[in-house]
């Protein structure tokens, strides 16, 4: 083992030059033993926990070894293993391998005359504390949300599913970023085929960087051109735990609080984790409000334009006359007016998201006063159109999934176009087109509209109403039957 050519200066120089003499690279040189053998610890500042580094690597090496006679120990590794009190040590690493460890937050120890070095796990970087997820808020239910650290996220799931069958597998994606991706599932619930499919799709990914789970989502989804999300993303560990128990596979990506769940169906996107935390009649009611909201968000402006342009006879005369009198003097055709208002709302919404909180109220004042009040009073926009757009906006916010409501916002314009060409018939054709797309869509082997089409009575019941827990006798059901 001991060879003259591996001088410690060379070893240190190799690491520092490989990392381009980065300023956050720290090297601490010292000697151990009676023989005063030169040793160095190398780590990246900020990636290591300084307390761990001090207490379990540096201080044992520096304080207790003055009297050690190195000639007694044949292998320096054995000595160091017994001295270092850190929880995990990897040995026999070449310098090249060791650099990877340094990058991952380990401290490596190089010894004069040894080709191989030791990596001590001292990972400990600053993470955000566990907070309530801001993207999905519940009134009743757990308040913890995922953070950017994989270890914390996995622990949040493990705390909920205390089961020996819970599997956590690691894959590395991104040729530049080398991002860790974890696959979490329950071995006896998730179908073997599904897990294999997830593995192979993630392994097939060829990308240089992964900074958010959407990178993975876009690359593993079934239909690349579909507007509908076929991967479920969530910030809530309870949501993920529920999915895992139901036999889905969770994908956690390092550096983002958003976890992915597959397979994902349209009706999964319409569920909120809170459905299971509140009384079942209320939850069922809310779920139906959501279904209605889905429909309204998609077709309400289209219906407004289509019916007024092509089938005014369907509207009761008093209502029709009040709409028409409100529209008197409006310079735009109905379609343009509706499009204009929809686009204005989308703009307002986008502006509201990016605004600093202090300026946020200005947006709502501008939105409410200028567009809502003044535009109507000036006769540029009619108030029925404002009402329709507002109703649609509310319905869009009812949809629990941000991805799905984004899809609906886009499709709403498509429906508006269909309605302006052929009225209700156009809306019907548009709906059939969307329906056909949905029926041919799959998410990891599961039909997107299941369990309604193809129909599965047991699952469909659970989808349409929130079945109380006492009424659920069989928990495990075949989920992935096609047909």
């Amino acid at each position: 083992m001991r060879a003259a050519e591996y001088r410690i200066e060379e070893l240190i120089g190799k690491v520092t030059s490989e990392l381009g003499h980065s300023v956050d690279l720290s090297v601490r040189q010292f000697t151990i033993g009676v023989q005063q053998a030169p040793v160095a610890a190398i780590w990246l500042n900020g990636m290591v926990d300084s307390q761990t580094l001090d207490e379990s690597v540096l201080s044992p090496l520096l304080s207790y070894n003055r009297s050690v006679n190195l000639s007694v120990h044949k292998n320096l590794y054995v000595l160091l293993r017994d001295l270092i009190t850190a929880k995990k040590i990897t040995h026999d690493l070449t310098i090249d391998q060791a650099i990877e460890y340094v990058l991952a937050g380990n401290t490596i120890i190089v010894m004069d005359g040894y080709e191989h070095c030791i990596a001590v796990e001292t990972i400990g970087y600053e993470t955000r504390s566990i907070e309530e997820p801001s993207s999905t808020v519940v009134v009743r239910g757990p308040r913890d949300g995922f953070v950017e650290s994989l270890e914390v996220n996995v622990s949040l799931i493990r705390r909920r599913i205390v089961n020996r069958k819970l599997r956590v597998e690691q894959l590395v994606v991104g040729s530049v970023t080398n991002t860790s991706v974890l696959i979490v599932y329950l071995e006896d619930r998730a179908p073997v085929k599904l897990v294999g499919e997830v593995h192979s799709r993630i392994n097939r990914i060829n990308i240089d960087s992964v900074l958010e789970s959407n990178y993975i989502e876009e690359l593993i989804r079934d239909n690349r051109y579909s507007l509908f999300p076929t991967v479920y993303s969530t910030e809530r560990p309870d949501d993920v735990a529920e999915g895992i128990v139901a036999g889905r596979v969770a994908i956690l990506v390092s550096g983002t609080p958003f976890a992915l769940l597959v397979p994902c169906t349209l009706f999964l996107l319409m569920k909120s984790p809170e459905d299971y935390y509140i009384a079942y009649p209320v939850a069922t009611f809310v779920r139906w409000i959501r279904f209605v909201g889905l429909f309204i968000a998609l077709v309400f402006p289209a219906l407004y334009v289509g019916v007024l342009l092509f089938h005014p006879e369907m509207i009761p005369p008093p209502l029709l006359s009040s709409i028409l009198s409100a529209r008197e003097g409006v310079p735009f055709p109905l379609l343009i007016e509706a499009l204009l208002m929809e686009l204005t709302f989308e703009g307002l919404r986008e502006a509201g998201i990016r605004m600093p909180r202090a300026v946020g109220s200005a947006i709502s004042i501008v939105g409410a006063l200028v567009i809502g009040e003044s535009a109507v009073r000036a006769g540029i926009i009619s108030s029925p159109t404002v009402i329709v757009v507002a109703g649609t906006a509310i319905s869009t916010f009812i949809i629990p999934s941000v991805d799905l409501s984004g899809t609906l916002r886009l499709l709403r314009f498509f429906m508006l176009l269909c309605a302006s060409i052929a009225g209700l018939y156009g809306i019907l054709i548009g709906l059939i087109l969307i329906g056909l797309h949905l029926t041919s869509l799959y998410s990891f082997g599961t039909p997107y509209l299941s369990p309604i089409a193809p129909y599965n009575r047991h699952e469909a019941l659970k989808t349409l109403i929130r079945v109380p827990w006492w009424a659920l006798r069989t928990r495990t059901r075949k989920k992935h039957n096609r047909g």
Partner: protein
Amino acid sequence: MERYQISGRQFFFIIFAAVVSLIIFSLPTQLIPEVKQDLWLSMVIGVLIDIYVAYILYWLGRKYAGQSLVQYSRTVLGPIGKVFGLIFVLFFFLVILSTMWLFCKFLSTALLPKAPAMLFSITMTLVVSWAAYLGLESIARMTQIISVIILIASLLLILFSIQELRLDYLLPQLENGVAPAIKAAKYPASWFGICIVMGMLMPHLINPKQALKLKVSAVLLGALVMTVTFLCSLALLGPYLASRIDFPIYYFSRTLRVTFFERIDVLMLLIYISGAFITFSALYFAASEGAAQLFGSRSHRGWVLGSSIIVVAVPLLPASNNASFAALYFDKLFPLLGLLIEGGFTTLIFAVALIRHYVERGK
């Protein structure tokens, strides 16, 4: 070729939607002027004929399991069977063309008078050929959703009309004897007979044993709903008006008011259009798959795309603006052709298959 699989429930709903939506556009105009209040008898006879055909197809489908109508007509009849297969495929296309023509004419007169008929043929062909392109599974899943809506809407329509019905319009029953009703049975029989599409769908059924039961119950349910709707429209509009207007069912739904909505006829129309979509796409799939099997193509998809050009152009066909030809075609030619192919050809294949069956047994 891709193997599509459909469940019994999906098969049931496809047949149901086909029965209901095909005849809603065509049958009342033919049937009501001829037999008026006795139309139920024609419907019953039509259903009986259809059950007979269904039994034949079921027997053949079970005997030649995994083969479609086009395929086993070749197995049974040899080279001549290929001609039969071609005729079946052409007949499916003919039905698509005829009903598409009716559909476009109806919509361009009733729903959007200002729009050209081409608008409807283009949009409908677009969705239908896409559905056929995607395959039977997509069609079957759409059917599951749409058929339930059709069923509920039809029942609601009947329910809302009950208080306005005048049942004495339906009397006297059988005042001209049973002969006219039996003669008029050719209309429902020829339209119900479209369900020989069952012969094309049966190989895709997960459990073909149920085919007969499902088919018969679907036709029974569809015919029942439609007969009651026809009778209701007669009882509401009166035989005189009902036999003179072009689309009695449409006017029937027009007279109804549901809570604060003035006119639900458009909604009813939309529901039947979505039913027509199911029928078209099932027929379209059957026709193009039949053509693919006939000519040994690898996929039915090429046939879908090829034939869609013809279907789009239906309103432009030279015969389509000729009212007397249309009347002759729908009143005389189509029922005759339909009965010949649906009843006659299938019976012929059945007879030959039966003979072969016993000859083989005798050995």
